[in-house]
């Protein structure tokens, strides 16, 4: 269960987004969004080259 400070942060950040143009808030969240995708793809690429890695990826993606 997330506590009160988590909820307060959601509200604080939403207020920031509401009161600033996209060109400002995208500087904060854009790199975070990109980093998650880049890191995950790099990891999956590395995992796919290990023994049994492709099968593990298929299970992670619920394809089997």
């Amino acid at each position, binding site marked *: 269960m*997330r506590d009160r400070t*988590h*909820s307060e942060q*959601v*509200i604080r*950040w*939403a*207020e920031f*987004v*509401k009161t600033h143009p*996209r*060109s400002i*808030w*995208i*500087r*904060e*969240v*854009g*790199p*975070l*969004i*990109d980093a*998650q*995708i*880049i890191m*995950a*793809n790099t990891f*999956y*690429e590395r995992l796919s080259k290990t023994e049994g890695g492709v099968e593990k*990826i298929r299970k992670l*993606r619920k*394809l089997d």
Partner: protein
Amino acid sequence: MDREVKERTILDTFAEDFVNVVEKHAKYIIVSGFVAIAHGRSRGTEDVDMIIERIKKEAFIKMHNDLLLAGFECIQSEYPEVIYDDYLKDKTSVRYVRKGHFIPEMELKLAKDELDDYQIKTRKKLPLTGLDLYFSSIEMNIAFKEELLKSEKDMDDAKHLRIIYSDVLDENEITRIKAKIRRLRLS
């Protein structure tokens, strides 16, 4: 140290490139988590959710082939007939990625009931996102997250959207949509 900051995230470009193909074949909407993220919600996601109008198999095959030409591939099958008959027609979503990549995924499904038809009919472009995409309405997204999905992440998404659109939200519309959700998805 200066860091380069792009106006478009990887998710933005992925969604726009996918939509550039889909919109030639069907009416579509982007729904759920990416709606909140496109409004600045600071969280990650592996997929973008898209609903398209119910199209016939022949039309889907053309769309699928255009998606392949644009560099996308379907994780479930390379055969559009299988994708349509075994998944989409069965109200099951399928996932497309850029060829050779693992994420992000576009989770694609056909409209399945009058609620989805209504979402597509009331779709909107949302200038605050800076993206030239059709989304389901903010009221629709809030209603789904608060009435059906209800995870902590979804409730935080709804809270975020409520603050961003606090001055223009139609609460009566949210109430009407929640009633439809209870009738069509929860009974």
